[in-house]
């Protein structure tokens, strides 16, 4: 019990950061799932990619950027965990906790990626490809 308490207190920073990050991602995921459902319903009604991206005041773009920021933050937390492990810990308990935190964060990152892929990333890729096509064709003509 003492050993367990010691490990928890030694790694309190990482634990607090991971829990806060998980809560933020949970709230984000719930909202994103709702948006995904609404976008898929709109898609079934026959709306185009540009209509979907404009849906609810361009919410898809905001969620796309939030996803990138959250994924980068996750990678930052993994880096921080390894940095702390390397600098301050030599104990097997700390190492196990560090690996556990890393696995949790990797799962969260994969979860965000899975949620954002369909339909938001698909819509964004479609619109950006069309936009780049328009802009490049004009710039090569002029």
């Amino acid at each position, binding site marked *: 019990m*003492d050993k367990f*308490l*010691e490990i928890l*207190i*030694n790694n309190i920073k990482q634990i607090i950061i991971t829990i806060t990050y998980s809560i933020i991602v949970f709230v984000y995921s719930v909202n994103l799932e709702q948006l995904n459902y609404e976008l898929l319903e709109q898609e079934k009604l026959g709306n185009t990619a*540009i209509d979907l*991206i*404009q849906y609810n005041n*361009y919410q898809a*773009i905001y969620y*796309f*950027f939030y996803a*990138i*920021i959250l994924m*980068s933050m996750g990678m*930052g937390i993994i*880096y921080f965990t390894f940095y702390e492990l390397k*600098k*301050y810990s030599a104990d097997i308990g700390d190492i196990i906790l560090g690996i556990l935190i890393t696995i949790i964060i990797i799962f969260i990152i994969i979860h965000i990626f899975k949620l954002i892929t369909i339909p938001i990333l698909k819509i*964004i890729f479609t*619109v*950006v490809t*069309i*936009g*780049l096509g*328009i*802009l*490049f064709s*004009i*710039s090569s003509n*002029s």
Partner: protein
Amino acid sequence: MKVNKIKIKRIWKKSQEKRKNIYNLEYEKIRKMSEKDYILNYTEIKSKYKFSQNVKYLLNTIVISILGFLGYNLYKLSRTFFINYTTFNSEQKEIATITIIILSGLLLILIFSFLIIIYLYLKRIKNIERKLIMYEEIKKENTNG
């Protein structure tokens, strides 16, 4: 419950002290090394330092080239967009604006990520430098003593 609180406080204090004394502990560790280990570690740290100094320049060059290339292309696209804005119909305007906004956002995030990576790398070099100084100080101590 009271006992638990005291226990937690004790462990917390111990952990903080360990963190504060990490440099002293490292000093002690180096002092206790045998001559062979000392030479091996010192050579390793020295080569690591030189290598990371070289990688620093390489990393900066790669970052500047990637960001320069992407930034220049985005600038060219934005210029085309602003020059031909009046010739677009409403849907084209919408698509082109969204494209420029998304690409600018991605570039901005990329710039921030690269800045963070460079900052962390410089911090790492500082740590290696600090270790090298430690080794050199102990070397001086040994030659003087």
